[in-house]
């Protein structure tokens, strides 16, 4: 394996969790719900995946546990904000704090236990292509899932009738209600989809990225996904591009630090954030398209008239 292939592989590993969690949050926000608890759901997914893999001795069961962990945890958010109409911003922040604390407690006995790494699946024929083969087609299941998610979310939002309804709710929940669309039910599902995606992203962290359990191992990635969704103006392909841009610059600056280019390391660590923001701001300079893609009822509570 060449150094080039190795770098590409690490870029993919660093970018995959961002793309998955951001796609989940994108669907949640397109339905008009702002869930700031991505960080909390991600870390809950990470600890659930690690524990599941340990208990059942299988990384695949771990993935399932991670997805379920994130989805169930997000259900708490959905109940508080959609049924009890609590403030979405405050509840989301609380979800993050709760997730970080609870995962630390749950994972206490797993600290410094060697983890189970999710194995790679080589796709016949395609994996023999030079350079691209080993990088793209000798990957783990979660990477394949992330690509399927980009295609799937894009199709769902812009081609399916259910996705149209979801976007309609995000644009104006009262109009959607007047048309007989089930606002609360759709939002529950959207929030849980976001939770499941965050959980899957967390599973990638504790099964692929660094196959072990470390407290706070999500390390702020949840917050980055939130920014990605906004700067990508709620569009799946831009989220994908933004996620990979961030992942690539993160890895490259690590290599630059190792080479010792004489640039202060603090400046290099800043680069991924700066580069992602600059690029996404430039591609979203068209205010009209941004406005059309922004869910107008984002973060607003919906209480149906009775």
């Amino acid at each position, binding site marked *: 394996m060449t150094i080039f292939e190795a770098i590409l592989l690490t870029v993919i590993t660093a970018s995959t969790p961002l793309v998955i969690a951001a796609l989940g949050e994108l669907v949640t926000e397109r339905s008009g719900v702002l869930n700031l608890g991505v960080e909390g759901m991600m870390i809950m997914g990470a600890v659930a995946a690690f524990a599941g893999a340990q208990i059942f001795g299988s990384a695949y069961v771990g993935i399932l546990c991670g997805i379920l962990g994130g989805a169930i945890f997000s259900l708490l958010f959905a109940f508080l904000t959609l049924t009890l109409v609590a403030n979405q911003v405050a509840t989301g922040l609380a979800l993050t704090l709760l997730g970080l604390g609870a995962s630390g407690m749950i994972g206490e006995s797993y600290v410094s236990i060697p983890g189970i790494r999710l194995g790679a699946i080589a796709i016949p024929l395609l994996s023999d292509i030079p350079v691209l083969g080993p990088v793209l087609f000798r990957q783990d299941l979660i990477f394949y899932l992330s690509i399927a998610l980009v295609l799937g979310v894009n199709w769902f939002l812009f081609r399916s009738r259910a996705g149209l309804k979801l976007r309609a709710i995000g*644009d104006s929940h*009262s109009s*959607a209600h007047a*048309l*007989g669309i089930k606002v609360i039910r759709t939002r529950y599902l959207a929030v849980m989809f976001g939770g499941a995606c965050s959980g899957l992203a967390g599973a990638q962290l504790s099964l692929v990225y660094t196959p072990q359990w470390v407290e706070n191992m999500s390390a702020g990635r949840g917050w980055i996904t939130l920014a990605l969704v906004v700067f990508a103006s709620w569009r799946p392909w831009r989220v994908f591009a933004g996620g990979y841009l961030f992942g690539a610059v993160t890895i490259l600056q690590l290599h630059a630090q190792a080479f010792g280019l004489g640039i202060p390391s603090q400046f290099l660590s800043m680069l991924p954030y700066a580069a992602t923001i600059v690029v996404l701001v430039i591609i979203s300079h068209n205010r009209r398209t941004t406005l*059309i893609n*922004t869910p107008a009822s984002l973060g607003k509570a919906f209480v149906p*008239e009775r």
Partner: protein
Amino acid sequence: MTLSEDALAVPLLSVRGLTKLFGSFAACSQIDLDIAPGEIHALLGENGAGKSTLVKMLFGVLQPSAGQILWNGQSVAIGSPGEARTLGVGMVFQHFSLFEALTVGENIALSLDPKISLAQISDEAASLSKAYGLPLDPKAHVADLSVGERQRIEIVRALLQNPKLIILDEPTSVLTPQEADRLFETLFKLRDEGRSVLYISHRLEEVRRICTRATVLRHGKVTGACDPRQETPASLARMMVGADIAEVHRDNIPAGEVRLEIKDLSVPSRTPFGVSLKDISMRVCAGEVLAIAGVAGNGQGELFDALSGEHTVPQADAIRIRGRGVGQTGINGRRLLGAGFVPEERHGHGAVTGMPLSDNLLLARSQSDRKAFLAGGLFSVIRHGAVRTAARRVCQVMDVRKSGDDPAAGALSGGNLQKFIVGRELDRQPALLIVNQPTWGVDAGAASRIRQALIDLAKAGSAVVVISQDLDEIFEVATNIAVISEGRLSDPYPAGTLTLEHVGLLMGGIHDKHSQPEATHAH
């Protein structure tokens, strides 16, 4: 009697004793209503009379507290808008239930059977809109469309479901007279096909023109059922309001010195969906009421912002108040020159709803009437006594009905709060008053009080600018009328030389000088 005759006698929709309670407040109480097949039936009433509540129950958005709905003589429960549509009820809302971020085709698709493809829906919508004379482009984004076009989407959307009853909630309040005429033709076509129309309005002339039966609501109760063609507007108004409405009196007075002068004012739009103001020029003299007519969303809000100083403009001399260039001056600076402003939005813009009336009065006038309301020089201590007295005076002069001495602004009804906000400015005897939509969503009694106050102010020697969508109001108060369309302002015309049709043409953006009456300068 044959069977078919019997069937004809059965109304399409009957409502018996329908009641809706919100807590202990009855928004609708014991409503009876019959709509025959193939008739255009008017539902008349003032704001807050319960029309919208009744219609929401018929469309399944709200559930009645008591009473019965009969469809073709069968008792039905309408649990959701979806059930209403399956029954054959179509609805065109007053505040459009459209999604701005979606295309026309997507908006229509949302209310239809999910099995039909988007392409098929676009085709059907295109052929329907052609058949009923309602041109539409299925691929356009709603955000880019005019209000009239948006209404067409709603109508086409309702028609695609092949409804037997179509409910229209205040459909003409956003249309020019010509657009309204086109809508009426569509309605006649629907009636001739045997469909029924429930037409909700408070515009009496229009109801007398197109409806054969009317039901009048007041305070949630039916106060009359009649044939509107046999009634006079005055008799209909009496049924609606329950008392005669004071007529507004206006005498012309010679114009005095120029109080407001605008020269070549251009302001680019601040938002993608806003309107840019283009080369606006006008002058308003003491004793004059200049009314600016126009369909909503043609730059009225932007013009008001520029005139009031809410958004300043770079050229100081583009706007002159009493000869002083004020383009870069903020609201308080303009107030100090003797100007007063009443914005369109009462809640949150004209008044802070959570604060008592006296505080609201102080917030608006703390700079311009500093000496009266603040003491202690730099310390700016509020003189509560003086502020309360002023608030009480405003309430008395404008006949503001309220509970308690100094209630929160939000506790007042729309009409009373609007009277207070207008009165707050009038109390200063402003040399120039600029009002945006003075009686929007206000009941007829309060509206006539406000209009009379504006006329009296001009008579006392002030200059008044009224921006309004309501043509009746404009003809009632104006000495001169100008029309704003797509950010351009027409020349002003003396009110006496214009007819409704002329104003309608101008509102539609037709600025052909030859087809217009002579402008003021020609006299």
